[in-house]
């Protein structure tokens, strides 16, 4: 039974380790957002189609501007 005198402190040290890990996780923001990562996981399956570089820079913005001009 006297083994308990050894086990109890060991348990407490291990528990302290877990608390320290939790403290690190909290401080580094692991629990800040609990919803989006679950969704993001489903997204990155296939790479997006490549677009030619030259129109890449302008095409979507041009679409936005033309839309703004037309209204």
């Amino acid at each position, binding site marked *: *039974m006297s083994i308990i005198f050894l086990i*109890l402190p060991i348990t407490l040290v291990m528990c302290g380790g877990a608390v320290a890990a939790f403290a690190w996780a909290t*401080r580094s923001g692991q629990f800040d957002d609990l*919803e989006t990562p679950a969704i*993001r996981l*489903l997204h990155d399956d296939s790479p997006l189609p490549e677009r030619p570089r030259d129109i*890449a820079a302008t095409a979507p913005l041009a679409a936005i501007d033309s*839309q703004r001009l*037309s209204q």
Partner: protein
Amino acid sequence: MAAVVLPGTPRSRPPPALTVIACAHCGLPVPAGRVAPQDSQQFCCDGCSSVHAVLSAAGLTDYYAHQISSDAALASPRPTLRKFEELDEPAFQTRHCQQLGDGLRSTELFLEGVHCSACVWLVERLGRVVPAVVNARFDLTRSVLQVTWNGEVAPLSAVARALDSLGYCPHPSGSTNVVAQQRKGDRALLLRLGVAGAAAGNVMLMALALYSGKPAGMSQEYLALFRWGSFLIATPTVFWTGSVFFRGALAALRTRTAHMDLPVSLGILAGYLGSASNTLRGHGDIYFDSLCTLIFLLLVGRYLQRTQQRRSAKASQLISALAPTTARLVEADRLREVPAGDVAVGAIVEVLPGERIAVDGVVTQGFSSVDASLLTGESLPQNVAVGDRVHAGTTNQSATLRVRVESAGAATRLGRLMHSVETTQRERAPIVRLADRVAGYFVVGIVFVALATLLFWWHFDAAHALDHTVALLVVTCPCALGMATPLAVSAALRQAAAAGVLFKGGEFIEELAQPGVMVFDKTGTLTEGRLDLVAWDGDESVKPLLRAAEATSGHPIARAVQRALTENELLCCDRTELPSGLRARVADQTVLMGSQAMIGAELGSLPLWALRSVRAHATLGRTPVVIAVENTVRAVAAFADRVRPDAATNLKRLHALGFELHVLSGDHQEVVAAVAAELGVPLRSAQGGASPESKLAFVAELRKRAKRVFMVGDGVNDAAAMAAANVGIAVHGGAEACLAAADVFTTRPGLEPVLLAAAGARRTVRVIRGGIVLSLAYNLVGIGLAVTGQLDPLLAAVLMPLSSITVVTLAMRATTFRHRSSS
């Protein structure tokens, strides 16, 4: 009414020959008038087609594959088309943005309208639309996009415009300081919660050894080990993680108010001191396990409340934290956008049609109509010409105006109004919450019972008197009582948000649960807030001519005609706007339309039937427009701001809930009376012609008569009254200023959410009361056991979590705001 929809008949049946065409973007049916047979894809509105164009240009059409068809709340995106130039101001950049070096900057933007997985996918690929964006991470919990972009390639306003084009209107997400502060607070509380949980688990293990060893007899050294072990863990737990409650209790003592933290701290401290002294002395009961569990459970409640409440409050605060509007300053040779508050008196600003006027001033050039419904509640726009005054916050409708500034920023009528909103809000007495009120009596009762117990046992068994008293204080420590409100409220806030009702704080749920006077604004709240063609007297064949004449105008009457008559087959030429009407040539005929006075002046006289029709509509609070073709009066069209279809039934239900209904509007008395009559509100409770200031006075007067007042509105003119009311409720589509003043706001159109808010609030308070009664019942049992000296730590350790679990289950399972579609 022009169209009476019989109950049971579908509102709009598609023509039998056509099948319903779904919009390629949002999936809603495409109106027949918009179908373009030559295109492969059809869109229901300009918003959808432009978003689709942006997505295809960026190669992001996978968005549609990510859309989950069923529950994504489909709505046509409505880009606000703002320029967001204020986001590029240096002052804004230093306050909201972080410099990361290499020209990279990072900021957080609060986005409206992101609600599903496909939206997240899309906004995180913002870099495909704006190549300057290096990284975009979305946080669905806070609805905030963390965006990193290259400031040398594109300004933040370009990023914001791109988001806006996709239908996700961005707002600055509070200054980086505030955000960091809040996040720090969240993390600190979570850390305490985790530590308290770990401590509670370990102390409970040792307590289990003590409890199970007790009947068999445990040798002294093991007893001491477990006692000192628990003491070692419990001490930092109580003083560090539990300091939240001690601080609250101290604050309550200092301000002499009742607060839940008071009895909680009393119980924890008494339990800890008693157990610690027993540990030191080496005999007697210890309660460390109960104390740690207690702290842990209470922190869980507090954490849930904090995160849930902030989430509801955030959406409203951020929308109100909009950057200042800009004004277009006219300088000698060019136009320049400047912050609206910085415009000098006497300067000239230009206001385009469709734009909000940013200053108070006098028109120096142009002729237009101005919609002042948000500021004054008048449903009809007013014509303004050179020399007329216009106010900030009103919308210029039909033509470009130039305005000489008389006051800007805080000195405008709008600015003064918002100032009075702020002062009224600050002076409002805080709401005393039900649980805190109970806690006030509770703490007095417990101290009294504890003293009685101490004195009683002192006489009979002085050795155990202190132990019994400590046991009493531990077992009555109101754990369940402390959790009843936060849990019920946070569950209710979550359900309410899902059902389209956002509360800025749990206390407003409790306040709204009690009956009182509910004051409604008319324009935009009870009515649609826009003119519609509601009646037509005379020749139906004139309609196409009218449609063609009004095809290009942005005037509210023209818009109403465009909405009512979707087909336009004729061409209009030579369109001239007259002071209160217009003249146009359509299909080789001269069409003249306008007010009775104007047509009378042009044609000499009006036929009797037309005069009668005009008078009949005018008494109903409608706006009659006379239409003449080739100098003969052919028809009279009546326009009105239609009552919302769901208003009558929901007002009736609110009345059934015990609310006294009142209509208070800035519109003309006849219009208000007509609306009140249609809704079944007694005429003496319908008041028109109320300025924003008199609305505030009305609410203040009601409150002085010790009445509980709830103000429901949507405009800036309601904001001050809302701030003065016990609870201000802003309906969907309200002005930003109004959202700032409101305590509750709805995200679905109509009055049904208002009814839901009131009914749900009552159900929530019933749940809270149930929880309080249950926890008090458990406490009574505990008091009985403790006073008679039969309570030991094991019993306390069982009783406390048992009561908490009951209350938690009750609170989490309750249906409070869940939207019930069948009713």
